[in-house]
Protein backbone atom coordinates (compact mmCIF):
# COMPACT_ATOMS: atom_id res chain seq x y z
CA UNK A 1 0.00 0.00 0.00
CA UNK A 2 1.30 3.42 -1.01
CA UNK A 3 -0.41 5.59 1.60
CA UNK A 4 1.92 7.16 4.14
CA UNK A 5 0.96 6.33 7.71
CA UNK A 6 -1.10 9.07 9.35
CA UNK A 7 0.07 10.48 12.66
CA UNK A 8 -2.79 8.76 14.45
CA UNK A 9 -5.38 6.27 13.41
CA UNK A 10 -8.35 7.91 11.73
CA UNK A 11 -11.73 7.23 13.31
CA UNK A 12 -14.24 5.82 10.83
CA UNK A 13 -17.96 5.40 11.50
CA UNK A 14 -20.29 3.50 9.17
CA UNK A 15 -24.01 2.85 9.10
CA UNK A 16 -26.77 1.58 6.86
CA UNK A 17 -29.96 3.66 6.67
CA UNK A 18 -32.51 2.61 4.03
CA UNK A 19 -30.03 0.15 2.58
CA UNK A 20 -29.70 -3.63 2.36
CA UNK A 21 -26.20 -3.87 3.90
CA UNK A 22 -24.97 -4.89 0.44
CA UNK A 23 -22.54 -1.97 0.45
CA UNK A 24 -21.19 -3.10 3.83
CA UNK A 25 -20.83 -6.61 2.40
CA UNK A 26 -18.93 -5.17 -0.55
CA UNK A 27 -16.77 -3.24 1.93
CA UNK A 28 -15.94 -6.55 3.66
CA UNK A 29 -15.05 -7.91 0.22
CA UNK A 30 -11.79 -5.95 0.43
CA UNK A 31 -10.88 -9.18 2.27
CA UNK A 32 -7.41 -9.29 3.78
CA UNK A 33 -6.89 -5.64 2.88
CA UNK A 34 -9.14 -5.00 5.89
CA UNK A 35 -6.07 -5.79 8.02
CA UNK A 36 -4.05 -3.15 6.15
CA UNK A 37 -6.91 -0.73 6.65
CA UNK A 38 -6.95 -1.42 10.39
CA UNK A 39 -3.34 -0.21 10.54
CA UNK A 40 -4.64 3.17 9.43
CA UNK A 41 -8.11 3.48 10.95
CA UNK A 42 -10.14 2.46 13.95
CA UNK A 43 -13.87 1.99 13.79
CA UNK A 44 -16.33 4.08 15.74
CA UNK A 45 -20.07 3.38 15.39
CA UNK A 46 -20.42 0.62 12.80
CA UNK A 47 -22.08 -2.77 12.41
CA UNK A 48 -18.51 -4.06 12.87
CA UNK A 49 -18.16 -2.65 16.41
CA UNK A 50 -21.69 -2.42 17.79
CA UNK A 51 -20.97 1.05 19.19
CA UNK A 52 -24.45 2.59 19.33
CA UNK A 53 -23.76 6.27 18.76
CA UNK A 54 -21.26 8.06 16.61
CA UNK A 55 -19.17 10.68 18.40
CA UNK A 56 -19.51 9.42 21.99
CA UNK A 57 -15.81 8.47 21.97
CA UNK A 58 -14.60 11.65 20.31
CA UNK A 59 -15.07 13.15 16.86
CA UNK A 60 -14.81 10.94 13.79
CA UNK A 61 -12.74 11.68 10.73
CA UNK A 62 -14.78 9.77 8.16
CA UNK A 63 -18.47 8.83 8.24
CA UNK A 64 -19.68 6.34 5.66
CA UNK A 65 -23.41 6.19 4.96
CA UNK A 66 -25.07 3.35 3.11
CA UNK A 67 -28.72 3.74 2.10
CA UNK A 68 -31.07 6.66 1.66
CA UNK A 69 -33.38 8.28 4.16
CA UNK A 70 -36.77 6.56 4.46
CA UNK A 71 -37.89 7.22 8.05
CA UNK A 72 -37.49 9.59 10.99
CA UNK A 73 -34.75 7.53 12.63
CA UNK A 74 -32.68 7.66 9.41
CA UNK A 75 -32.83 11.47 9.62
CA UNK A 76 -31.58 11.49 13.23
CA UNK A 77 -28.76 9.01 12.54
CA UNK A 78 -27.69 10.91 9.43
CA UNK A 79 -27.64 14.20 11.33
CA UNK A 80 -25.66 12.56 14.15
CA UNK A 81 -23.09 11.40 11.59
CA UNK A 82 -22.92 14.83 9.98
CA UNK A 83 -22.41 16.51 13.37
CA UNK A 84 -19.64 14.14 14.42
CA UNK A 85 -17.76 13.34 11.20
CA UNK A 86 -15.38 15.67 9.44
CA UNK A 87 -15.90 13.93 6.11
CA UNK A 88 -19.22 12.36 5.16
CA UNK A 89 -19.33 9.79 2.36
CA UNK A 90 -22.43 8.55 0.49
CA UNK A 91 -21.68 4.88 -0.23
CA UNK A 92 -23.73 3.15 -2.92
CA UNK A 93 -26.72 3.83 -5.14
CA UNK A 94 -29.31 4.26 -2.35
CA UNK A 95 -27.31 6.89 -0.46
CA UNK A 96 -26.46 8.62 -3.74
CA UNK A 97 -29.87 8.71 -5.45
CA UNK A 98 -32.36 6.84 -3.24
CA UNK A 99 -31.92 3.58 -5.15
CA UNK A 100 -34.42 0.75 -4.87
CA UNK A 101 -36.35 2.06 -1.82
CA UNK A 102 -36.95 5.33 -3.69
CA UNK A 103 -38.87 3.44 -6.36
CA UNK A 104 -41.83 3.81 -4.00
CA UNK A 105 -41.67 7.58 -4.25
CA UNK A 106 -44.49 7.97 -6.76
CA UNK A 107 -46.81 5.80 -4.65
CA UNK A 108 -48.95 6.96 -1.75
CA UNK A 109 -47.45 5.80 1.57
CA UNK A 110 -50.86 4.92 3.03
CA UNK A 111 -51.65 2.76 -0.02
CA UNK A 112 -48.29 0.98 0.25
CA UNK A 113 -48.76 0.16 3.93
CA UNK A 114 -52.35 -0.97 3.34
CA UNK A 115 -51.26 -3.22 0.48
CA UNK A 116 -48.38 -4.78 2.41
CA UNK A 117 -50.13 -5.24 5.75
CA UNK A 118 -53.85 -5.45 4.95
CA UNK A 119 -54.84 -6.42 1.45
CA UNK A 120 -51.89 -8.49 0.12
CA UNK A 121 -52.69 -12.17 -0.38
CA UNK A 122 -51.31 -14.61 2.20
CA UNK A 123 -51.40 -12.35 5.25
CA UNK A 124 -52.29 -13.83 8.64
CA UNK A 125 -55.79 -12.95 9.71
CA UNK A 126 -56.06 -9.69 11.61
CA UNK A 127 -52.71 -8.34 10.33
CA UNK A 128 -52.63 -4.58 10.77
CA UNK A 129 -50.28 -1.77 9.82
CA UNK A 130 -47.67 -1.71 12.64
CA UNK A 131 -48.18 1.28 14.91
CA UNK A 132 -45.91 0.59 17.88
CA UNK A 133 -44.58 3.94 19.13
CA UNK A 134 -41.07 2.38 19.18
CA UNK A 135 -41.13 2.15 15.39
CA UNK A 136 -39.74 5.14 13.48
CA UNK A 137 -42.34 6.78 11.26
CA UNK A 138 -41.77 6.32 7.54
CA UNK A 139 -41.35 9.44 5.42
CA UNK A 140 -43.65 10.13 2.48
CA UNK A 141 -40.70 9.74 0.13
CA UNK A 142 -37.24 8.20 0.28
CA UNK A 143 -34.48 10.78 -0.11
CA UNK A 144 -30.83 10.46 -1.11
CA UNK A 145 -28.70 11.73 1.76
CA UNK A 146 -27.50 14.86 -0.04
CA UNK A 147 -31.08 16.16 0.13
CA UNK A 148 -30.84 16.12 3.95
CA UNK A 149 -27.22 16.97 4.90
CA UNK A 150 -24.09 18.20 3.17
CA UNK A 151 -22.18 15.27 1.70
CA UNK A 152 -18.47 15.51 0.93
CA UNK A 153 -17.91 12.46 -1.29
CA UNK A 154 -20.08 10.13 -3.34
CA UNK A 155 -19.24 6.56 -4.31
CA UNK A 156 -22.00 5.15 -6.56
CA UNK A 157 -22.69 1.50 -7.39
CA UNK A 158 -25.16 -1.18 -6.39
CA UNK A 159 -22.98 -2.02 -4.58
CA UNK A 160 -19.74 -0.19 -5.33
CA UNK A 161 -17.14 -2.90 -6.00
CA UNK A 162 -14.72 -3.71 -3.18
CA UNK A 163 -11.85 -2.43 -5.33
CA UNK A 164 -13.63 0.91 -5.70
CA UNK A 165 -14.16 1.15 -1.94
CA UNK A 166 -10.50 0.26 -1.35
CA UNK A 167 -9.26 2.77 -3.93
CA UNK A 168 -11.56 5.45 -2.54
CA UNK A 169 -10.54 4.93 1.10
CA UNK A 170 -6.83 4.64 0.45
CA UNK A 171 -6.87 7.79 -1.71
CA UNK A 172 -8.87 9.65 0.93
CA UNK A 173 -6.70 8.48 3.84
CA UNK A 174 -3.56 9.42 1.91
CA UNK A 175 -4.93 12.93 1.47
CA UNK A 176 -5.61 12.61 -2.26
CA UNK A 177 -8.88 13.38 -4.03
CA UNK A 178 -10.25 9.90 -4.70
CA UNK A 179 -9.95 8.98 -8.40
CA UNK A 180 -11.91 5.93 -9.51
CA UNK A 181 -11.64 5.67 -13.29
CA UNK A 182 -13.18 3.20 -15.72
CA UNK A 183 -14.45 -0.03 -14.20
CA UNK A 184 -14.57 1.30 -10.65
CA UNK A 185 -17.29 3.88 -11.18
CA UNK A 186 -20.60 2.30 -12.08
CA UNK A 187 -24.24 2.95 -11.26
CA UNK A 188 -25.48 -0.65 -11.31
Amino acid sequence: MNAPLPRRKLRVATTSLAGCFGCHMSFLDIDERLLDLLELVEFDRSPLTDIKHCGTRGPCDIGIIEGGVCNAENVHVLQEFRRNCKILVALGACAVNGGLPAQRNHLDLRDILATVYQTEAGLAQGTQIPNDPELPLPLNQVHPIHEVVKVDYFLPGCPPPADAIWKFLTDLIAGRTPQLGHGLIHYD
Partner: protein
Amino acid sequence: MSEPTFTLDGREIPFAAGQSVMQAALAAGVFVPHLCYHPEFRPHGSCKLCTMKINGRHATSCTTPAAAGLEVESDTPEIQDKRRTLLQMLLVEGNHFCPSCEKSGECKLQALGYELGVLTPHFNLLYPDRPVDASHPDVLLDFNRCILCELCVRASAEVDKKSVFALAGRGIRKHLIVNAESGKLGDTDFALTDKAAQVCPVGVILPKKCGFCVPIGQRRFDAAPISQHVDEFKPVAIPGERA
Protein backbone atom coordinates in the same frame (compact mmCIF):
# COMPACT_ATOMS: atom_id res chain seq x y z
CA MET B 1 -4.03 22.86 -51.78
CA SER B 2 -3.84 21.55 -48.21
CA GLU B 3 -7.01 20.74 -46.26
CA PRO B 4 -8.42 23.57 -44.15
CA THR B 5 -8.08 23.08 -40.40
CA PHE B 6 -9.27 24.50 -37.10
CA THR B 7 -7.67 24.20 -33.67
CA LEU B 8 -9.26 21.94 -31.06
CA ASP B 9 -7.59 22.01 -27.65
CA GLY B 10 -4.36 23.02 -29.39
CA ARG B 11 -4.55 20.28 -32.02
CA GLU B 12 -5.03 20.98 -35.73
CA ILE B 13 -8.20 19.27 -36.96
CA PRO B 14 -8.74 18.97 -40.73
CA PHE B 15 -12.29 19.11 -42.05
CA ALA B 16 -14.24 18.58 -45.26
CA ALA B 17 -16.71 21.09 -46.64
CA GLY B 18 -20.08 20.83 -44.92
CA GLN B 19 -18.78 19.12 -41.79
CA SER B 20 -19.66 20.39 -38.34
CA VAL B 21 -16.99 21.00 -35.71
CA MET B 22 -18.15 17.82 -33.99
CA GLN B 23 -18.06 15.68 -37.16
CA ALA B 24 -14.55 16.86 -37.94
CA ALA B 25 -13.43 16.14 -34.36
CA LEU B 26 -14.94 12.65 -34.41
CA ALA B 27 -13.45 11.95 -37.86
CA ALA B 28 -10.06 12.91 -36.41
CA GLY B 29 -10.58 10.45 -33.57
CA VAL B 30 -11.39 13.00 -30.87
CA PHE B 31 -14.31 11.85 -28.73
CA VAL B 32 -17.06 14.40 -28.19
CA PRO B 33 -19.70 13.69 -25.51
CA HIS B 34 -23.16 13.58 -27.06
CA LEU B 35 -26.64 12.06 -26.65
CA CYS B 36 -28.92 13.56 -29.33
CA TYR B 37 -26.33 13.22 -32.10
CA HIS B 38 -26.31 10.12 -34.30
CA PRO B 39 -24.05 9.84 -37.33
CA GLU B 40 -26.95 8.84 -39.59
CA PHE B 41 -29.16 11.80 -38.69
CA ARG B 42 -29.06 15.54 -39.14
CA PRO B 43 -27.80 17.33 -36.02
CA HIS B 44 -30.41 18.28 -33.46
CA GLY B 45 -28.47 20.45 -31.00
CA SER B 46 -30.78 19.73 -28.08
CA CYS B 47 -28.80 17.76 -25.50
CA LYS B 48 -26.04 20.41 -25.42
CA LEU B 49 -23.47 17.87 -24.25
CA CYS B 50 -21.24 18.56 -27.26
CA THR B 51 -21.03 22.23 -26.28
CA MET B 52 -17.56 23.66 -26.83
CA LYS B 53 -16.03 27.10 -26.55
CA ILE B 54 -15.72 28.17 -30.17
CA ASN B 55 -13.85 31.42 -30.69
CA GLY B 56 -14.62 32.29 -27.07
CA ARG B 57 -18.37 31.57 -27.23
CA HIS B 58 -20.25 28.50 -26.07
CA ALA B 59 -21.90 26.66 -28.95
CA THR B 60 -23.10 23.15 -29.72
CA SER B 61 -20.34 21.68 -31.86
CA CYS B 62 -22.83 19.42 -33.69
CA THR B 63 -24.58 22.45 -35.22
CA THR B 64 -21.59 24.72 -35.72
CA PRO B 65 -20.08 24.42 -39.21
CA ALA B 66 -16.34 23.80 -39.18
CA ALA B 67 -14.42 26.79 -40.51
CA ALA B 68 -10.75 27.45 -41.10
CA GLY B 69 -8.95 29.02 -38.19
CA LEU B 70 -11.58 28.43 -35.49
CA GLU B 71 -10.17 28.26 -31.96
CA VAL B 72 -12.09 25.53 -30.17
CA GLU B 73 -11.88 24.32 -26.55
CA SER B 74 -13.54 21.06 -25.54
CA ASP B 75 -11.58 19.04 -23.00
CA THR B 76 -11.15 21.82 -20.46
CA PRO B 77 -12.23 21.81 -16.80
CA GLU B 78 -14.77 24.57 -17.52
CA ILE B 79 -16.49 22.76 -20.40
CA GLN B 80 -16.35 19.34 -18.74
CA ASP B 81 -17.93 20.86 -15.60
CA LYS B 82 -20.81 22.20 -17.66
CA ARG B 83 -21.26 18.78 -19.30
CA ARG B 84 -21.37 17.13 -15.87
CA THR B 85 -24.06 19.57 -14.78
CA LEU B 86 -26.11 18.79 -17.92
CA LEU B 87 -25.84 15.07 -17.19
CA GLN B 88 -26.89 15.64 -13.57
CA MET B 89 -29.97 17.56 -14.70
CA LEU B 90 -30.90 14.70 -17.04
CA LEU B 91 -30.34 12.17 -14.26
CA VAL B 92 -32.70 13.93 -11.82
CA GLU B 93 -35.43 14.67 -14.38
CA GLY B 94 -35.97 11.04 -15.24
CA ASN B 95 -35.98 7.91 -13.15
CA HIS B 96 -32.59 6.45 -13.98
CA PHE B 97 -32.44 3.50 -11.61
CA CYS B 98 -29.62 1.66 -13.34
CA PRO B 99 -29.68 -1.58 -11.30
CA SER B 100 -33.10 -2.46 -12.74
CA CYS B 101 -32.59 -1.14 -16.27
CA GLU B 102 -32.00 -3.57 -19.12
CA LYS B 103 -30.00 -0.89 -20.96
CA SER B 104 -27.43 -0.68 -18.17
CA GLY B 105 -23.97 -1.22 -19.64
CA GLU B 106 -25.22 -0.20 -23.09
CA CYS B 107 -26.63 3.19 -22.08
CA LYS B 108 -24.93 6.31 -23.40
CA LEU B 109 -26.23 8.50 -20.57
CA GLN B 110 -24.71 6.10 -18.05
CA ALA B 111 -21.49 5.72 -20.07
CA LEU B 112 -21.07 9.50 -20.25
CA GLY B 113 -21.62 9.71 -16.49
CA TYR B 114 -18.74 7.29 -16.08
CA GLU B 115 -16.62 9.08 -18.68
CA LEU B 116 -17.03 12.49 -17.06
CA GLY B 117 -16.93 11.19 -13.48
CA VAL B 118 -20.49 12.04 -12.42
CA LEU B 119 -20.62 10.58 -8.91
CA THR B 120 -23.81 12.26 -7.67
CA PRO B 121 -27.01 13.62 -9.19
CA HIS B 122 -26.31 16.74 -7.06
CA PHE B 123 -29.79 18.23 -7.59
CA ASN B 124 -33.02 17.07 -5.93
CA LEU B 125 -34.47 14.10 -7.78
CA LEU B 126 -37.90 14.47 -9.37
CA TYR B 127 -38.83 10.74 -9.48
CA PRO B 128 -41.32 11.09 -12.34
CA ASP B 129 -44.22 8.69 -12.59
CA ARG B 130 -44.83 8.01 -16.25
CA PRO B 131 -46.65 4.71 -16.88
CA VAL B 132 -44.76 2.20 -19.01
CA ASP B 133 -46.30 0.98 -22.26
CA ALA B 134 -46.12 -2.80 -22.69
CA SER B 135 -48.92 -2.97 -25.27
CA HIS B 136 -46.63 -3.92 -28.18
CA PRO B 137 -45.83 -7.64 -28.52
CA ASP B 138 -42.11 -7.09 -29.15
CA VAL B 139 -41.20 -3.76 -27.57
CA LEU B 140 -41.52 -2.17 -24.13
CA LEU B 141 -41.53 1.59 -23.59
CA ASP B 142 -40.35 3.04 -20.27
CA PHE B 143 -40.95 6.78 -20.58
CA ASN B 144 -39.36 7.45 -17.17
CA ARG B 145 -35.94 7.27 -18.82
CA CYS B 146 -36.60 9.55 -21.78
CA ILE B 147 -34.10 12.38 -22.28
CA LEU B 148 -36.04 13.97 -25.18
CA CYS B 149 -33.25 13.54 -27.74
CA GLU B 150 -35.87 12.91 -30.45
CA LEU B 151 -33.74 10.25 -32.14
CA CYS B 152 -36.71 7.85 -32.20
CA VAL B 153 -38.93 10.67 -33.46
CA ARG B 154 -36.49 11.43 -36.27
CA ALA B 155 -35.81 7.78 -37.11
CA SER B 156 -39.49 6.92 -37.28
CA ALA B 157 -40.34 9.93 -39.45
CA GLU B 158 -37.29 10.10 -41.70
CA VAL B 159 -36.20 6.48 -42.10
CA ASP B 160 -39.21 4.29 -41.24
CA LYS B 161 -41.71 6.81 -42.69
CA LYS B 162 -44.14 5.92 -39.90
CA SER B 163 -44.01 8.90 -37.52
CA VAL B 164 -44.78 6.68 -34.54
CA PHE B 165 -43.23 9.04 -31.98
CA ALA B 166 -43.49 12.74 -31.19
CA LEU B 167 -42.77 15.12 -28.36
CA ALA B 168 -45.71 16.88 -26.73
CA GLY B 169 -45.92 19.60 -24.08
CA ARG B 170 -43.42 22.32 -23.32
CA GLY B 171 -40.66 22.97 -20.81
CA ILE B 172 -40.52 20.58 -17.86
CA ARG B 173 -43.81 19.02 -19.07
CA LYS B 174 -42.38 18.04 -22.44
CA HIS B 175 -42.71 14.30 -22.96
CA LEU B 176 -42.56 11.55 -25.55
CA ILE B 177 -45.89 10.38 -26.97
CA VAL B 178 -46.98 7.61 -29.31
CA ASN B 179 -48.93 8.54 -32.42
CA ALA B 180 -52.05 6.42 -31.96
CA GLU B 181 -55.53 7.38 -30.87
CA SER B 182 -55.10 5.21 -27.78
CA GLY B 183 -51.55 6.51 -27.26
CA LYS B 184 -50.40 2.87 -27.11
CA LEU B 185 -47.51 1.50 -29.12
CA GLY B 186 -49.45 -1.71 -29.73
CA ASP B 187 -51.94 0.27 -31.82
CA THR B 188 -49.28 1.51 -34.25
CA ASP B 189 -47.46 -0.24 -37.10
CA PHE B 190 -44.17 0.00 -35.13
CA ALA B 191 -41.90 -3.01 -35.61
CA LEU B 192 -38.81 -4.23 -33.78
CA THR B 193 -36.92 -4.00 -37.09
CA ASP B 194 -37.66 -0.26 -37.41
CA LYS B 195 -34.75 2.15 -37.25
CA ALA B 196 -36.58 3.89 -34.41
CA ALA B 197 -36.23 0.72 -32.33
CA GLN B 198 -32.44 0.83 -32.66
CA VAL B 199 -31.49 4.42 -31.85
CA CYS B 200 -32.58 5.12 -28.26
CA PRO B 201 -29.39 6.14 -26.37
CA VAL B 202 -31.03 5.30 -23.03
CA GLY B 203 -33.47 2.63 -21.82
CA VAL B 204 -36.83 3.85 -23.19
CA ILE B 205 -37.32 1.56 -26.20
CA LEU B 206 -36.47 -1.99 -25.15
CA PRO B 207 -36.90 -5.25 -27.06
CA LYS B 208 -38.96 -7.78 -25.11
CA LYS B 209 -37.93 -11.39 -24.44
CA CYS B 210 -34.21 -10.70 -24.09
CA GLY B 211 -33.89 -8.68 -20.89
CA PHE B 212 -30.41 -8.71 -19.35
CA CYS B 213 -29.33 -11.22 -22.02
CA VAL B 214 -25.76 -9.86 -22.12
CA PRO B 215 -23.89 -10.72 -18.91
CA ILE B 216 -22.27 -7.96 -16.85
CA GLY B 217 -18.70 -7.65 -18.04
CA GLN B 218 -19.57 -8.24 -21.70
CA ARG B 219 -21.85 -5.26 -22.28
CA ARG B 220 -21.01 -2.50 -24.74
CA PHE B 221 -19.33 -0.11 -22.32
CA ASP B 222 -18.01 -2.65 -19.79
CA ALA B 223 -14.67 -3.33 -21.47
CA ALA B 224 -13.84 0.13 -22.73
CA PRO B 225 -15.23 3.56 -21.83
CA ILE B 226 -17.42 5.36 -24.37
CA SER B 227 -14.53 7.64 -25.38
CA GLN B 228 -12.77 4.61 -26.83
CA HIS B 229 -15.81 3.85 -29.00
CA VAL B 230 -15.16 6.99 -31.04
CA ASP B 231 -14.96 5.03 -34.30
CA GLU B 232 -18.65 4.11 -33.96
CA PHE B 233 -19.62 7.79 -34.01
CA LYS B 234 -17.61 8.90 -37.05
CA PRO B 235 -19.64 10.75 -39.68
CA VAL B 236 -21.34 8.77 -42.43
CA ALA B 237 -23.51 9.92 -45.33
CA ILE B 238 -26.90 10.94 -43.98
CA PRO B 239 -29.72 9.32 -45.98
CA GLY B 240 -31.48 11.95 -48.08
CA GLU B 241 -28.73 14.54 -47.59
CA ARG B 242 -26.63 15.89 -50.42
CA ALA B 243 -23.11 14.48 -50.19
